[in-house]
C-alpha cells in the first residue's frame, strides 16, 4: 500500500475511528475537527488518479481521487471542518454532546468516503452510512418538530437507498464489474436502472418531487448539522449522478427530464422560500433552488455529451461555491443574535449576494462557467439561459428576503465565542477569494464588461423586484404564509384522515380469524370431549361378556364368509 493509498484510505477512516473512540474518552469529542485533516491533506497534496485497493474488505474496496472528486472533497472537507469547529462552541453544554459528535463523525466519514469511492459497492456503503448517521443529527434535539422531520427524512432516506441499491445492482450485473469507471462507460442504457439511480440520488439531492424532507430537517437540526446537511451531504446526490449516469445518445430522455426537474426545482425553491418566516427554512428552500440549477446543469451534461467535460468542471466549481456560501449563511444564522450588525452585514451579506451571482464573487464565476459552454455550442440554449438568469434574479430576491429576516435580530444577545465566529467568517471570505485561487485566468476574464453585464442584470432585476415586493407587502398587511414542508403538510393531513377512516371500519381491524379461530378452537375441544366419552362408553359396552362372546362368534362367521367369498365359493 503506497503512501497515497494509505492517505486515501485514511480520509474516510479517520472520522470512523474517532467516532468509535469517542464514547470511551471523557472530553474526546473535542477532537472532532482533527478528523477532517486527512481529507484536507488529500485534496491539497495527493496527485490525481491516486488509487487504493483493499481486496479483503467488503467485496473488494477501491478508492480513487480524480479532479471531480477532488473538488467535491475540497468543499466537503472545508465545510465539515468549519462545522466541527463551530459545533465545539455551539453544543458545548448540550447533555448529549457525545452522542451528537459520534453521529456527526459517522456522517462525515460517510460523506468523505463516498466522495473518494471508486467502486459502486463502496459508494453505496458510504452513502448508506451518511444518510443513516445524519438521521442522528436531525433528531438530536428530540423536539416534536425534530421527530416529525426525522420520520420523514428516515422514510425518504431508506426509500432512496433502496432505489439506489436496485439501480446499482442492475448496472453492476449488466457490466459485470462494480468499478465506477467501467460502469459509466460500459453500462447499457437501461431505462429502469438509470431512472432508479436518478430517483434514489434525487431523494438525497432534493430534486423537486423528492425534496419534502429538506425544509423540515434543516430548521429542526442543530446549526452545524444543517450547515453540513445543506452544504455537503445533498451534494452527494449530484456526485452520484456524475459517477453513475452513463453518457451517450440513449440518455437524452433522462437528460431532458433532469433539466426540466432542475429548472422547476430552481423556481419552486425561490417561490416557496420567499413565503417563509424562519431564516433556516428559507435557506433550505434556497438550497433546493440552487440544487435545481445544478441538476439542470447535470441534465445538460447528460443530454449533450460534447459539453460534458466543460459542464462537469462548471458543476464542480458550482458545488464548491454553493457549499461554502450556504455553509457560511447557516453558521451565520446560528450566531446572528450574538454578533453586531456590521459583522453580520459583512458575514451574511457577502455570501448571500455571492449566491445571487454578485460580480467579483464565486457566484458570478459559477454561473458564468455554467453559461459559457451553452453559449459556445451551436444548439440554441437561449431559453435555458434566460430561465437560468431569471432564476438567479429570483435567488437575489430570496437572499434579500433572508437578510430582511435575519438582520433585525443582530447583536440582541451579545457574547458568542470566537470558536463559532471564526469558521463562519472564514467561509464567508471564501465567496470573494474562491474564483481567484480556483482559476485566476477565468476570474480575470470575468472582469470584462460584457461578462460583468451578463452577471449584473439579473442581480439588479432581483433587487428591483425585491424593493417592489417589500413596499407592496408593507401596505397591504396581508400575511401570506406557506407552511414548512409544503407538499408534505398536505400528504400528512391526507394520510391521517385515511388512517382514521380505516380505523373506523371494525371489520378490517379485527384480526380476520379472531373469532373464527376462537370458535374453531372451542368446537374442537368440545368435539374431542364428546368423542372421548362416546369411546369410553363403547369400550365399557364391549367389555360386557355377552357382547364379547357374540362378537367372537360373529367374527368367526365374518372371517369364514370373506374366505369363502375370496376363494370362490
Amino acid at each position, binding site marked *: 500500500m503506497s503512501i497515497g493509498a494509505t492517505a486515501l484510505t485514511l480520509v474516510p477512516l479517520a472520522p470512523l475511528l474517532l467516532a468509535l473512540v469517542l464514547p470511551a474518552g471523557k472530553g474526546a469529542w473535542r477532537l472532532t475537527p482533527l478528523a477532517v485533516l486527512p481529507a484536507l491533506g488529500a485534496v491539497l497534496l495527493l496527485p490525481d488518479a491516486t488509487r487504493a485497493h483493499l481486496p479483503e474488505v467488503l467485496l473488494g474496496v477501491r478508492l480513487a481521487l480524480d479532479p471531480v472528486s477532488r473538488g467535491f472533497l475540497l468543499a466537503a472537507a472545508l465545510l465539515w471542518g468549519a462545522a466541527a469547529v463551530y459545533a465545539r462552541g455551539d453544543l458545548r453544554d448540550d447533555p448529549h454532546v457525545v452522542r451528537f459528535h459520534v453521529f456527526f463523525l459517522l456522517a462525515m466519514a460517510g460523506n468523505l468516503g463516498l466522495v473518494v469511492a471508486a467502486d459502486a459497492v463502496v459508494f453505496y456503503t458510504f452513502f448508506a452510512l451518511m444518510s443513516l448517521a445524519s438521521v442522528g443529527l436531525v433528531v438530536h434535539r428530540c423536539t416534536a418538530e425534530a421527530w416529525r422531520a426525522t420520520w420523514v427524512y428516515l422514510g425518504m432516506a431508506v426509500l432512496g437507498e433502496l432505489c439506489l441499491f436496485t439501480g446499482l445492482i442492475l448496472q453492476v450485473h449488466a457490466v459485470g464489474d462494480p468499478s465506477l469507471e467501467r460502469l459509466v462507460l460500459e453500462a447499457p442504457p437501461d431505462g429502469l436502472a438509470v431512472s432508479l439511480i436518478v430517483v434514489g440520488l434525487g431523494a438525497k439531492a432534493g430534486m423537486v418531487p423528492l425534496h419534502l424532507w429538506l425544509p423540515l430537517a434543516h430548521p429542526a437540526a442543530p446549526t452545524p448539522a444543517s450547515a453540513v446537511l445543506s452544504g455537503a451531504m445533498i451534494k452527494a446526490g449530484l456526485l452520484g449522478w456524475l459517477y453513475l449516469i452513463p453518457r451517450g445518445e440513449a440518455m437524452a430522455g433522462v437528460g431532458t427530464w433532469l433539466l426540466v426537474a432542475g429548472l422547476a426545482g430552481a423556481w419552486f425553491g425561490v417561490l416557496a422560500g420567499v413565503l417563509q418566516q424562519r431564516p433556516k427554512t428559507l435557506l433550505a428552500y434556497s438550497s433546493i433552488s440552487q440544487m435545481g440549477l445544478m441538476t439542470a446543469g447535470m441534465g445538460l451534461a447528460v443530454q449533450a455529451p460534447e459539453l460534458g467535460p466543460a459542464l462537469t468542471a462548471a458543476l464542480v466549481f458550482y458545488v464548491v461555491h454553493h457549499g461554502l456560501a450556504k455553509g457560511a449563511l447557516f453558521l451565520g444564522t446560528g450566531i446572528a443574535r450574538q454578533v453586531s450588525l456590521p459583522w453580520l452585514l459583512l458575514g451574511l451579506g457577502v455570501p448571500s449576494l455571492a449566491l445571487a451571482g454578485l460580480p467579483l464573487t464565486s457566484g458570478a464565476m459559477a454561473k458564468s462557467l455554467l453559461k459559457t459552454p451553452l453559449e459556445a455550442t451551436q444548439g440554441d440554449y437561449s431559453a435555458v439561459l434566460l430561465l437560468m438568469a431569471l432564476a438567479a434574479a429570483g435567488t437575489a430576491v430570496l437572499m434579500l428576503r433572508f437578510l430582511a429576516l435575519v438582520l433585525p435580530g443582530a447583536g440582541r444577545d451579545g457574547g458568542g465565542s470566537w470558536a463559532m465566529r471564526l469558521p463562519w467568517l472564514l467561509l464567508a471570505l471564501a465567496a470573494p477569494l474562491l474564483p481567484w485561487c480556483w482559476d485566476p485566468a477565468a476570474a480575470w476574464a470575468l472582469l470584462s464588461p460584457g461578462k460583468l453585464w451578463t452577471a449584473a442584470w439579473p442581480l439588479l432585476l432581483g433587487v428591483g423586484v425585491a424593493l417592489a415586493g417589500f413596499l407592496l407587502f408593507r401596505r397591504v398587511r396581508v400575511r401570506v404564509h406557506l407552511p414548512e414542508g409544503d407538499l408534505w403538510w398536505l400528504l400528512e393531513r391526507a394520510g391521517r384522515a385515511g388512517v382514521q377512516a380505516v380505523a373506523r371500519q371494525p371489520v378490517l381491524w379485527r384480526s380476520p380469524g379472531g373469532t373464527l379461530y376462537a370458535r374453531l378452537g372451542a368446537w374442537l375441544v368440545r368435539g374431542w370431549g364428546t368423542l372421548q366419552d362416546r369411546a369410553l362408553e363403547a369400550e365399557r359396552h364391549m367389555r360386557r361378556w*355377552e*357382547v364379547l362372546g357374540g362378537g367372537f*362368534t*360373529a367374527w368367526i362367521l365374518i372371517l369364514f364368509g370373506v374366505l369363502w367369498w375370496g376363494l370362490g365359493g
Partner: protein
Amino acid sequence: MNPRPLSLLSGGLSALLALLLVSALWDTPVHEGVSASVAGAMGHTGVAHPVTAVLLDFRAYDTLLEMAVVLLAVLATWSLGRCDTLPARPVQGPVMRGGLRHLIPLAVLTGGYLIWAGGAGSGGAFQGGAVLAASGVMWVLAWPRRPDLPAPLGLRVGVTLGVAVFLAIGVAGLPLGPGFMGYPPGWSYGLILTVETAAACSIALSLVLLFLGGRPWRDAEDG
C-alpha cells in the same frame, strides 16, 4: 341390550356355525390317518396297546406337557390362597364311612390294575390316577376334620414327582436313546411302566388337591 335379543342373535349365529361345521365335516375324505404307521412302529415301543404307545412313546412330549398342565393347575390354585375347611356340609351317619371302609381298598386295587393293564390293553396312568383320585376325594369327604395330609414339602414333591421322573427319563434319552424324549432301545417297556406309575400317583394327588381348591396348609404370612 337386554339379554333377550342378544341370546337370540347368539343362538342364530351358533346355529349357522353348526351348519358350517357339519357341511365342513361332511366332505372330509376318509383316511387311515396315522394308524398304519403306528401299527408298523409298534414293534419298537415295547408296549402292546397302540394308544398307550402313542401316548407314552410316539407323542411322549405331549404327555409330558399335559402332566405339566396338571401340575401348573395345582400351583395356580395354591397361588390363589388357602382352602377353607371342607366340606361345607359333612356327610353324617355310619353308612358313608362303613361303605367307604370297604370301597376305598377296592378302588385302590382297581386303580393299580388299570395302571398295569395300560401296557397291553386300554388303561394307563391317567385312568388309574383318576380312580385313585376318586377314592382320595371320597376319603376326604367322609372324614371332614382337617385332613392329616403330609407336610407341605411332601405334597409339593408328590405333585411334582410325575413330571420330574418323565423329564429325567426324557433327558436320559439324549445321551443314551434316540434324542430327547426317546427311550433307549429295549428299555422302553420298563421305563414306560415307571413313568406311568409315577404319573398316576402325581395325578391322583393333584386331583385331590385341586378338589380342595387352595393351599391345604398355613403359610408363614396368612396368620
